């Protein structure tokens, strides 16, 4: 048990570091876009650029929050134990599996990337909307299962 918690501590620390690094990379990309390569972005459709900016901001904010919460959890022994229990809880794992995690997240990510790469604006919008709907359905299923399970 103590070994598992120590392992979880290491995992949480590396998770926090990875989130912080990714967040900094996104911020660096934003700075790069705004000041250095702003003229070469003319070929990208405005809606794609807007979508990327919005998505990037949300992801950067989420990563920053996840990183902060990881490091705060590491400092508090009770919070660490609760986080460990939540991570290894069989009911939570069952709910996650039934709501399609993590496959839904992976396929949605692939659909969004495909949507950004495809040239046709209609196909691009369709792929992004389908990915968003897929994620929404997964969240709704998770909420319903949380209530009934």
């Amino acid at each position, binding site marked *: *048990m103590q070994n598992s918690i120590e392992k979880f501590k290491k995992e949480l620390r590396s998770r926090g570091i990875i989130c912080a690094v990714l967040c900094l990379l996104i911020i660096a990309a934003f700075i790069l876009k705004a000041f250095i390569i702003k003229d070469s972005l003319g070929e990208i459709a405005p809606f794609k650029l807007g979508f990327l900016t919005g998505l990037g901001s949300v992801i950067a904010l989420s990563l920053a929050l996840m990183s902060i919460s990881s490091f705060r959890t590491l400092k508090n022994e009770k919070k660490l134990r609760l986080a460990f*229990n939540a991570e290894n809880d069989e009911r*939570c794992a069952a709910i996650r599996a039934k709501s399609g995690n993590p496959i839904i997240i992976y396929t949605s990510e692939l659909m969004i990337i495909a949507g950004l790469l495809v040239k046709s604006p209609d196909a691009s919008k369709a792929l992004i909307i389908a990915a968003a709907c897929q994620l929404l359905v997964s969240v709704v299923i998770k909420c319903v299962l949380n209530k*009934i*399970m």
Partner: protein
Amino acid sequence: MKTKIKELRKLKKMSQEELALAVSTTRQTITSIETGKYIASLPLAYKIAKCFGLSIEEVFDLSEYDE
């Protein structure tokens, strides 16, 4: 599935969170097991029973599975 967890917990003056910590699960899972919404796995049922110093049959009502 009916269980005696709530009664046993009250007898031991234990909160759901304390029991959850003792058996390495979440408070929500304990609530779901107590209300019969979720059936605990064998390892979790064993941990809960062990926490009260009883056998699984004494904590969980398994009569509905009797043929």
